């Protein structure tokens, strides 16, 4: 369809964006950078801090961009990342 889109979807306010809470176990990280490399939404970036293993763990740039695909959890060799979904009523679901 060649028309240029000029209006936001009428349901844009009601669209539920999955809210994620990303948990990093920083001291478990060995700094391989897989999460930074493979996150499709580019949520991570290398941080300046140094962890217990003497490497730079990732930091979260924008948590709201996370769409809960949990690929970071899958690729992390050290089980240092997991993601929980925030429910509207404040509950958490892993």
């Amino acid at each position: 369809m060649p028309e240029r889109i000029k209006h936001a979807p009428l349901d844009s306010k009601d669209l539920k964006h999955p809210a994620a809470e990303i948990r990093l176990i920083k001291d478990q990280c060995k700094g391989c950078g897989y999460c930074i490399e493979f996150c499709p939404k580019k949520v991570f970036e290398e941080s300046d801090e140094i962890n217990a293993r003497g490497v730079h763990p990732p930091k979260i740039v924008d948590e709201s961009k996370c769409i809960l695909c949990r690929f970071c959890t899958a690729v992390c060799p050290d089980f240092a990342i997991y993601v929980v979904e925030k429910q509207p009523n404040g509950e958490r679901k892993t």
Partner: protein
Amino acid sequence: MAEKKESEPKQLEEPRIGVYVCHCGLNIAGSVNCEEVAKFASTLPHVVLSQDNRYTCSDQGQEGIKKDIKEHKLNRVVVASCSPRLHEPTFRKTCEDAGLNKYLFEMANIREHCSWVHLYDKESATEKAKDLVKMAVAKVELLEPAEEIEVPIERKALIIGGGVAGIQAALDLADTGYKVFLVEKEPSIGGMMARIDKTFPTMDCSICILAPKMSDVGHHPNIQLLTNSEVKEVKGYIGNFHVKVLKKPRYVTKDCSACGECTKVCPIVAPNEFDVGLASRHGIYSPFAQAVPATYLIDMNLCLNKEGVVVCDKCIKACERNAIVFEMKPETVDLEVGTVIVATGADVFDPSTLPNYGYSKFPNVITSLEFERLINAGGPSGGHLLRPSDIQTPKSVGFVQCVGSRSERNGRLYCSNVCCMNTIKDSLLIKEHWPDTEIYVFYVDIRAYGKGFEDLYNRARKAGVKFIRGLPSEIKEDRRTHNLWLMGENTLQKELYKINVDMAILSVGLESRKDSEVVQRLLTLSRNQDGFFLEAHPKLRPVDAATAGVFFAGCAESPKDIKDSVTQASAAAARAGILMAKGKVTVEAITPITFPEKCQACGLCVKVCPYNAISLNKELKRVDIIEAACGGCGTCAAECPFGALTQSHFTDKQIIAQVDALTEHDADKKIVAFCCNWCSYAGADFAGVSRMQYPPNVRIIRTMCSGRVAPKFVERAFARGAAAVMVTGCHLGDCHYINANYQTQKRVERLWKKMEQNGLNKERLQLLWASAAEGERFASKVREMKTIVDAVKPEEIEKAKKIFEKALEDN
């Protein structure tokens, strides 16, 4: 094919020419002394029979010719009467019936080009008629018999575009029994009609009447549907097109049951293009509920799984039938088809280029297409009229007509045909459901020209829709409420208005597809100045393209409503069906003749051929001609610097013989005019039909295209002492042979340069573009040239003779 004609044809027998000068009642005899012309003709070489008769085209006249061919052993026939555009087929048939090859017949046009345009100068008209007969006799002597070749036609059709026109054409052809390939670049067929809510004037639900047809297409055994696909290459010619189609992957196989479970889990959300962005969709989606094929697809621009790395497998997990395959690759499909129907449709005008209407700046200014989605029960609002700013039902609505149409300043010059009725239909739809809504329609003219249209217009007026003549010059927004102020002049009451509405709908026009150029190039089509595809004849061949075997349906040809699109689609299907039913096609024997011994394999002819019908064979140092693809313009023959190519039935020798015949006497008073069969010759015919009078010193030589006029013909005319030469053709861009007349322009410009360099008055060579309707343009040009001819001094004639001396050596 080329081998057959390699050697110079031998003159097998002495020409025995019969000349028939027609009185056409008093149409010709009124201003031409026909007896004298016939008497003159009998003195010409090889003429064994010459007579004048009242109506040559009557049964009696034709029988006479047939009898003479047998009795007098005539092997060439000249009829001096009306335009060959009118009666050449008639007399060709007469010759054929008498056993004479139809290519051994020639006409002299002494009615449209002589008696009718020189009504009050019988002497000059008679002299001119003699000249025209002499030219015809000179040409007929050199004519050769020719056989028309037959080309087989593949009984399959390609339809480009799966809108309502493409769907209708596909169903018609498939039901007739032909195999059809329907190529659609979107994921579903349906086109614009699938997006519209109701149709005018009957107020039928658009998708309800279209969906059964779409589903028929999906299930028809004779139709192969290629969605998400684009035509990438078309080679070949009528009956034998080789087509390459790129089929983009859907990443979902046919096992998809369209349950929609995948969509629910897909984390990606984006605006849905089908709803012009007014609703959202997911990364895996179906564009709309009635989509055909119903198979879902994945938008790879959005999906997280790029390049085979499966990052997110939510849809895969949700799909019970394992229909999602991320490894799918684009594939190229090769098709062999005999005919092509172009049903590529139209785009809607983008009003964001008009700053005064504030579209895309003010949320409550929307286009008519967005409105269609808004009021559609299957659309983003479920059929509730809502305005975008606050999702509330508007109390007052203003429709602005002609947005992007009929304006030199704002968009396009032409009327888009459908917007008036669409607005009237939309206003009635609002009135039906929300009768208290105030509706204003700002218009230039309401064009309710079709069956039932005026009734609908009256219904809208009775329902209380206010029609105000005069478009708003500006739309302003109240920042707080997002209501709109429409300001302009009511030109009927001659007063200014400033009207407050909750929502404004811009009735946008239709324009040619932005990618029409691609289809144009693939199929060597022409487009008019508005960008729509040009038909072969605006009245009598409205669905045929200039390229043989290609037809148009729907908005690709011009903006039209659903009914007209469907009508045209059925017409195109019928036209394509005729070809395929016959299974073969004959090509007029006006294709090039090659002389391989002269060919230097320079490839100039290959470059100028508008049909890609010539290919260079470097190894054998010659060119190969695909006669079935050849349009017959002859521009290759005019381009060849070595005389290795000529056009059958319009050979160099024949045309030069005509030039020589007319320049034999009083050349210094005459204008040699080359006219193309389709535009300028027809324009000169039109001047005759309209009895436009012009000086009798012009002699017209007909070629199929102005592109056939080789510089040496012009040089020959000057070398023979002609006072002036006129090369005429179709307007640039309107060439019957796609673009061959651009070559004409180049050649004439080169000749002008040569004349200037040699100190000749270049005004003696004129180039005129005149359409078949521009008789007056032709006539006034001849009048204008009369003054040029009168001013030419004898020494200038002599000088030109010397400069172009070389042209006499030829032949």
